[in-house]
């Protein structure tokens, strides 16, 4: 058992709207107890919401026979999470930039941008169905 983390969790979520909210609350509760607050806490909240809801909606397409696998580790100054869905994956580089003049009014496309803004590191596997994110407290 690693001493590097204060609390780690592994679980699967059903592919239903909102199925990620209890886990999100659980993770945020632990971060709060470890002293995370302000922009750091907010940024993790955003990354959790966007990555988990993407996996449920875009990845597993709300298909009840598919699950989202989550592994998450928290510490007073570090956060790490891996979210894997059973979808076809996607190529992040090919997503249109919603900050462009045309993109500005598009209803979607902001989740990945927000994740990149708040996380210290963001990686996808080659298939694109698994995102791994980490944040060092106080860093983007």
């Amino acid at each position, binding site marked *: 058992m690693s001493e590097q983390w204060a609390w780690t969790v592994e679980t699967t979520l059903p592919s239903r*709207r*909102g199925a990620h*909210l209890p886990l999100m609350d659980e993770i945020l509760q632990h971060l709060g107890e470890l002293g995370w607050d*302000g*922009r750091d806490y*907010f940024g993790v*909240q*955003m990354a959790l*919401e*966007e990555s988990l*809801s993407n996996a449920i909606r875009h990845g597993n397409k709300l298909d009840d026979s598919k699950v989202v696998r989550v592994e998450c580790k928290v510490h007073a100054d570090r956060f790490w999470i891996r979210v894997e869905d059973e979808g076809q994956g996607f190529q992040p580089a090919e997503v249109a930039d*919603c*900050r462009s003049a045309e993109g*500005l*009014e*598009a*209803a*979607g496309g*902001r*989740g990945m*941008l*927000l994740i990149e*803004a708040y996380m210290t590191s963001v990686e996808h596997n080659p298939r694109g169905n698994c995102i791994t994110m980490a944040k060092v407290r106080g860093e983007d």
Partner: protein
Amino acid sequence: MNTFRRLNVNRSGTVTVVTFADSKIIDDGEIQELGQELYALVDGGGPQKLLLNFSSVEFLSSAALGKLISFEKKVRQSKSELILTNIRPEIYEVFAITKLTKLFKIKDDEADALAVL
């Protein structure tokens, strides 16, 4: 005016002042409802002056941003005016990262907004 569940709606002179009932705008069902309630503010009636006060909002997802963007389009279609106020620093950064500060007119507080509406 209908009874709303996700919004609190008040009049200040000719301006409709709207605050949010939820501190976290994240639940899909609530976001759908929020959208419908916002649309109802401009649907049917003529041009309106609208002020959205974000003081109670501590978190909002990108899905909620999507709804606000659709609402802004409806506002323009109805030739109404919309100003957002009292946005917390964390939420303001979300608007900045996504460049929505370019799409929305934003003022510090209600007084500043009422002065130009």
